[in-house]
C-alpha cells in the first residue's frame, strides 16, 4: 500500500450531506472484477443522467475539476453499506483524500486499508473549502493540516489510522507476528466455549 504523507492536488467540492456508499458506487457494478478498474463507477448515478450521459453541471464533470485528487463533502460521507468497492471507486478515480465533517465508521476503516485519507474538518472549514473549490490544496498528514487559498485548516484523524496511512501498513503482515498469542488464545477459547466449534 502506498504510504500517505503529504499530498498536493486539486480539491473538488461535493456539497452534499449523507453521500452514502450506495451513491459512491451503485450496487449493480460490484460484480465487476477489481482488475477492470472501478474509477468509472464513482458516483455514477449522480454524475450521469438516465440515458448515461455525463451531467455537465455535476462538480466532478466540470473541466476545472479534471484530475482532482481531493474530495470535499458535507457530513456523514460514506455512511451505509460496508462495500469496500466504494473506496475502490474513489482510489481508482485518483482520489487520495476525502475531507468532510464526519464519515461512516466502516468506510473509514476501508479507506485507510486502501491508502485513502478520510480527514475530519470543522463544518465551517468545509464550507470555506466548498466555497473555494475547485482549487489547489496541500494535505499534510504529519501536520494534520489542509492548506488552500492562503488559509490553513486543521483536521482530525484517529491516531491509529494516521500511523497506518503514513507507513502504508497492511494488517495481515502485522498480525503474523502475533501468531503465538492467537494460537494460545484459540486453545483457551476452545476450552471455555467448546460448542462454538463443530465436531
Amino acid at each position, binding site marked *: 500500500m502506498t504510504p500517505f504523507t503529504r499530498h498536493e492536488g486539486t480539491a473538488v467540492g461535493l456539497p452534499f450531506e449523507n453521500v452514502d456508499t450506495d451513491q459512491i458506487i451503485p450496487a449493480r457494478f460490484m460484480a465487476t472484477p477489481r482488475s477492470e478498474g472501478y474509477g468509472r463507477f464513482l458516483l455514477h448515478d*449522480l454524475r450521469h443522467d438516465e440515458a448515461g450521459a455525463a451531467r455537465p453541471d455535476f462538480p466532478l464533470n466540470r473541466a476545472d475539476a479534471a484530475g482532482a485528487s481531493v474530495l470535499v463533502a458535507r457530513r456523514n460521507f460514506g455512511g451505509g453499506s460496508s462495500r*469496500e468497492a466504494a473506496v475502490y471507486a474513489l482510489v481508482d478515480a485518483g482520489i487520495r483524500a476525502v475531507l468532510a465533517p464526519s464519515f461512516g465508521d466502516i468506510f473509514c476503516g476501508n479507506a485507510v486499508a486502501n491508502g485513502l485519507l478520510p480527514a475530519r474538518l470543522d463544518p465551517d472549514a468545509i464550507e470555506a473549502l466548498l466555497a473555494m473549490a475547485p482549487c489547489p490544496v496541500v494535505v499534510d498528514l504529519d501536520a494534520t493540516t489542509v492548506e488552500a487559498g492562503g488559509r490553513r485548516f486543521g483536521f482530525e484523524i484517529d491516531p491509529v489510522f494516521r500511523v497506518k496511512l503514513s507507513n502504508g501498513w497492511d494488517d*495481515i503482515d502485522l498480525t503474523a507476528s*502475533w501468531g503465538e498469542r492467537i494460537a494460545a488464545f484459540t486453545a483457551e477459547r476452545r476450552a471455555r466455549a467448546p460448542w462454538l466449534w463443530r465436531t
Partner: protein
Amino acid sequence: MTTPRTLLDKVWAAHEIAVRDDGTSLLFIDRHFVHEGSHHAFRKLAERGMSLAEPGLTFGVADHYVPTRGRGAPIADASIARMVRTLDENAARHGFRLYGLDDSRQGIVHVVGPEQGLTLPGTTIVCGDSHTSTHGALGAIAFGIGATEVAHVLATQTIWQKKPARMRIVVDGRLGPGVGAKDVALAWIGELGADGARGHAIEYAGSVVRDLSVEGRLTLCNLSIEGGGRLGMVAPDGTTLAWLAGRPEAPTGSAFDRACEEWLALASDPDAAFDRDITLSADAIAPIVTWGTSPEDALPITARIPDPSLADDPARAERIRAALDYMGLAPGRPLEGTPVDRVFIGSCTNSRIEDLRAAAAVLAGRRAKVPGMVSPGSSLVKVQAEEEGLDRIFVEAGLDWVASGCSMCVGMNGDIVAPGERCASTTNRNFRGRQGPGARTHLMSPAMVAAAAVAGTLADVRPMLDGRPVP
C-alpha cells in the same frame, strides 16, 4: 470491588487477545459469515496463497445476488451465476460450511445465523455486510467489515479494532397497537441523525426492549448502522434463552445449561457507566415512515412533508429540497395519502416470521391496490409461513410470494423498483437508487407496508387494525 462493566465490556474483554500500544485491540472472532459478494476478499487471500485459519468458524450463505424466482433452474445472469459458483468453489476449497442456493436452510445471512443458532450470546461475529449489527440482538458483539478486513479474518480469525464508545438507548413506556421495533428504530434515528451514533456501540435497554421478542430485537439491532452505530446489542435474558433452546447449532444438554448461566451474567452491571445515555418514551412513538433519501428523514405518518423554506439553516434547506426533488414530493402536504406504486416486504430488517405475520394480519381478507412482492428472510421462514397459511393471504391480496434473498432491498439480483416508482418498503435504506436507479423508497414497518398496499397510498395502519392482533 471491581469496576462495574457493561455488556459490551464483558464480551469485548472475553475476546481480547492483545492490546497494542496505540490502544487497538486484537479480537478473536467466533463466527465469520461470508456471502457471494465476498469474492474480493477471497481473491486477496488467493493472491497471498493463504488458507483459512478456522474453516470451522466460517459460514457461507448465498443471499445478496440470488434470484427469488425460478429457483432450481440455472441462474440466467452470467455474472451472478459466476459469483454464486465462486462461493461454492471457495467453500469446497477451504472447507467451510455453506448454506448455498439449493440448501433448504438458505436465506439472508442475518436471518439464517440466528435461526440456525450459529449466533449465540457472548460471541463475536463479523461479516462483510453492514447489517451484521443484527446479530447483537442475542447479546453478541456483531459488526460489518470491508473486504480487506474480511480477508484478514479469513487468514487469522482475528480483527484489529478500537473499542467503540458505549451508548445506551433506553426505551420505556408501552408501544401502542400497530407500533413496533421498526418504529422505535426510525424514531431514534430521526431524532439523532444518520450519524447520531457514530463511533458508538449501542446497548438497547428499558421495558420496551425487554418486552420485545427476539425477532423485534433483531430488527432494532439491525438498524443500528442506519443511525451510524458500529453495532447494537441487547442483554441476553429469559426471552433469548427460550428462543435459542433447540436451535440446530446451539449447545445442548448440560452444555446449554452451563452456557445459559454464563450468558445471563453478561448483562450490564447495575452501576456500569455509559459514555452516552439516550431515553425514549414509547408512548410518544407513532407508526413512522421516511420521506427523504436518508433513514434520518423519518416522521410519524400523521406528520406533513417538511418544507425547506422553514429549515433552520441553508445547508439543511438545500438537503430537504434535493431529497423532495428526488422523491417527487411537495413540501407541506400530509404524508398520509401519498400514492405508492408498489410494496416490498423482505430484507434482513423485516422478513422473519413475526414480520410476515404482522403484514398478513393487516392484509387478511383485503386486496392490495398496488403490486408488490414478499420475500421471506430464509427458506425455512418460507416453509413456516406456508404452514401457517400466510402465503395464501399475500397471494389472495394480490402480492407475489417469492423465494428468499436480499432481493429488492438492494436490487443486486435484478428485483428492482422502476425509475420514478414509489415503493413502500420494509427495508433499511431509502438511499437514492438503493432499490434501483431512480427508485423512490419509503421505509416503514411490515404492518405499515401492508396498510400502504391496501390503501394504495402511505397510510396509518392503526385504523385498519379493527382489533386484529398485530404481533
